[in-house]
């Protein structure tokens, strides 16, 4: 769409999110002969876990991406969905997406939401310093070409994701100083023992660990502060008893994943804190909308692939393969185990001081929130959560720290040019610029 011509597309199915769930669903829908439009914010498909640089598709993704490209599904990259609405008298759904400054409208009979998950960032002193990034964020930036050779890196957070990320950083030449898992040793060991049925996962974990073997991997440990002049230069870690200061150039700190649900909520689909609520065929509470993958609940790539395929079958009016249902159940069970094993400890709720910024978009410090205010009140009085990220970062944090009011999601579901909001099929470029 670089020539500036806006797009209006008609499809049988629109899929928002080209991670494993979206890719699997779009592929199978298109292979069944449906017109499919698959949208993603990135230029290339893959989502987070299958993110890749040109010519370096991860092995697990290759068969699917090959099939996708042959399936006839139309890939629309660099597209941020900003609105979702009924169209054509309720017969269709219309996705309004923005590609750079150009609107793209997709009208479809059915919609699959596969917008994935984001990381949960928890505020602590110094977390806004340049050089503090996420854990999945580190992976994403590395695949985007981030150079870390020679950089001292500390990785902190929770869950198995710490291992492949530390390994990727080491492979890319970073000097990993420490990998800090906040969960207790007992909890992590219990979880690891529970993986005896899938020894491959333990082997893989050991392989990752070997790649950063020179660095300690500690449990019961978390970051309490980052410091530096204009960028992160050192961090303090603690195990609740002893504090240590570690010099570093890069701090990767994030605590688990939360599902992205704004588009679902825009259409008033039922959601819970755990994800978009779907029936066993992946259909949401809206008759024309299905959801699959991390957006229905954090569960990893297997769950995403399987749910994408179940949704595709449902959208085709077919019964899904029974093995898919079994695999989904197993993935969900595993996710629940992981959730329990890596539950966030209470100390993480108390890292922020009154000076710590809790809303990065509006620079609201914790001390600006009067204790007697409800969170909804605090939002209104301080603009907490009313900035560009629309509460995605601070909302996930505050859900854990205290509470976060679930308010109606309104257009735009992501910040959008005013001209995009004026785009419509009869006037697809909205307003002449």
């Amino acid at each position, binding site marked *: 769409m670089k020539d500036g011509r806006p797009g209006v597309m008609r499809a049988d199915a629109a899929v928002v999110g080209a991670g494993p769930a979206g890719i699997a669903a779009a592929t199978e829908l298109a292979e069944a002969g449906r017109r499919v439009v698959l949208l993603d914010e990135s230029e290339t498909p893959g989502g987070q876990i299958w993110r890749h640089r040109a010519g370096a598709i991860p092995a697990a993704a290759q068969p699917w991406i090959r099939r996708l490209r042959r399936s006839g599904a139309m890939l629309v990259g660099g597209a941020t969905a900003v609105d979702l*609405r009924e169209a054509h008298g309720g017969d269709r759904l219309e996705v309004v997406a923005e590609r750079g*400054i150009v609107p793209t409208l997709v009208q479809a009979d059915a919609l699959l939401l596969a917008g994935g998950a984001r990381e949960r960032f928890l505020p602590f002193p110094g977390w806004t310093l340049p050089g503090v990034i996420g854990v999945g964020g580190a992976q994403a930036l590395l695949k985007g070409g981030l150079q870390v050779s020679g950089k001292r890196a500390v990785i902190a957070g929770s869950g198995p994701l710490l291992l492949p990320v530390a390994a990727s950083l080491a492979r890319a030449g970073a000097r990993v100083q420490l990998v800090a898992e906040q969960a207790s040793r007992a909890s992590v060991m219990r979880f690891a023992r529970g993986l005896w049925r899938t020894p491959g996962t333990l082997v893989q974990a050991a392989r990752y660990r070997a790649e950063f073997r020179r660095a300690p991997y500690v449990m019961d440990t978390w970051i309490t502060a980052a410091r530096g002049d204009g960028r992160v230069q050192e961090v303090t870690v603690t195990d609740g008893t002893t504090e240590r200061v570690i010099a570093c150039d890069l701090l990767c700190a994030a605590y688990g994943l939360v599902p992205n649900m704004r588009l679902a909520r825009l259409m008033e689909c039922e959601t819970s804190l755990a994800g978009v609520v779907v029936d066993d065929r992946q259909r949401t509470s809206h008759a024309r909308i299905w959801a699959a993958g991390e957006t229905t609940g954090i569960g990893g790539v297997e769950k995403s692939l399987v749910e994408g395929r179940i949704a595709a079958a449902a959208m085709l009016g077919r019964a899904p393969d029974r093995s898919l249902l079994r695999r989904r159940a197993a993935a969900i069970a595993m996710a629940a185990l992981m959730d329990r094993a890596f539950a966030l400890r209470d100390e993480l709720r108390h890292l922020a001081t009154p000076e710590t910024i809790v809303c990065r978009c509006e620079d609201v410090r914790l001390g600006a929130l009067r204790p007697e*205010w*409800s969170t*909804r*009140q605090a939002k*209104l*009085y301080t*603009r907490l959560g*009313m*900035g*560009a990220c*629309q509460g995605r970062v601070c909302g996930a944090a505050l859900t854990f720290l205290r509470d976060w009011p679930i308010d*109606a999601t*309104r*257009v*735009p579901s992501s*910040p*959008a*040019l*005013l*001209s995009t*909001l*004026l785009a*419509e099929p009869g006037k697809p470029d*909205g*307003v002449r*610029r």
Partner: protein
Amino acid sequence: MTTGSHADAIVIGAGIVGAACARELARAGMRVSVLDASFAGGGTTAAGMGHLVAMDDSPVQLSLTAESVRLWRELRPALDAAVEYDACGTIWVAENAEQMEVVAAKAQTYRAQGVACEVLTPARLAALEPHLCHGLSGGLLVTGDAVIYPPRAALALLDDARAHGTTVHERCDVLEILPNGVRTADAVLGAKVVVNAAGALGAALTPELPIIPRKGHLAITDRAPSFCRHQLVELGYLTSAHDMAGESVAFNVQPRTTGQVLIGSSRELAGWEPGVNRRVLRRMLERAVRFMPALARLVVVRTWTGFRPATPDKLPLIGRWDPVAGLWIAAGHEGLGITTSLGTARLLADLVLGREPLIDPVPFTPTRVLANGAMRSRGAVA
């Protein structure tokens, strides 16, 4: 069920009008208790633009708004930075020669009321606001108008009331107004003076009040500092505000101290449906872009709706409500609640305390609705 009588005055509603009333009564030495079903400034106050504006839809309205804007100016030094008082002024924008005649008449009217203003030629208008479209006929600059951030303004007024001994009970629903008192879920509270300042919900407690919700949409952009420097309103806004029926939009754009641009305005009768109506939003945004084409390139971060408490004669209800002992009304401010909160509070306190009233109180007399058939409370307004 407890019975209490610790207050001289109970104010129902901690929106900007209730907060202002509590402050005036508290400063006059009354023990005031404020009750709000949710939290201070959480209702219509939260949705509003925060435009402090002298508005001349009628001489009475001009009197109340002009006095109120003056009171805000006087209060300004006492307001903390979070209230974001910005003396940016208003420019009323004229599209054609006919509207410039309206501008000339408006200027005269304003000046007679002591409201400073300057008629703008097209060149001067363009110099002041370069992003306005070409072809406009000029405008009227009202320098004394300003912009504030309503939720913090309500909080500031309430904090001032607290400093004068007022108690505030949030998340406290008033179920019924009684003679010289109110009933909540847990108690019956008595007071010499009860003020219904419940805004758009005022009619739920005093059913004869012809206050209906008049829905409006707003959109706010990401930061675009210096995009516009004044609140910009088309003259057609007055027509939009004036017509009680149907759906209308008007160009109304505001610079916030954050650098964000707030875009309004729309009016429709849609009951209490809070959802953003795409069609109305589109009409509103299209109108805005017509006057300021460069708005199309700004990024919209949020949209929302609010319910203005509207009355059939477009004037608020301020004063005693005779049918119920001890009851006073301070409600029905439509789109001028933020501006006229201070004038309303001063006038109400004048009446309660028997002081010389700030302005002629007669047009605001709440019981006018009982005498005048056209003002009777109805489900829908013709």
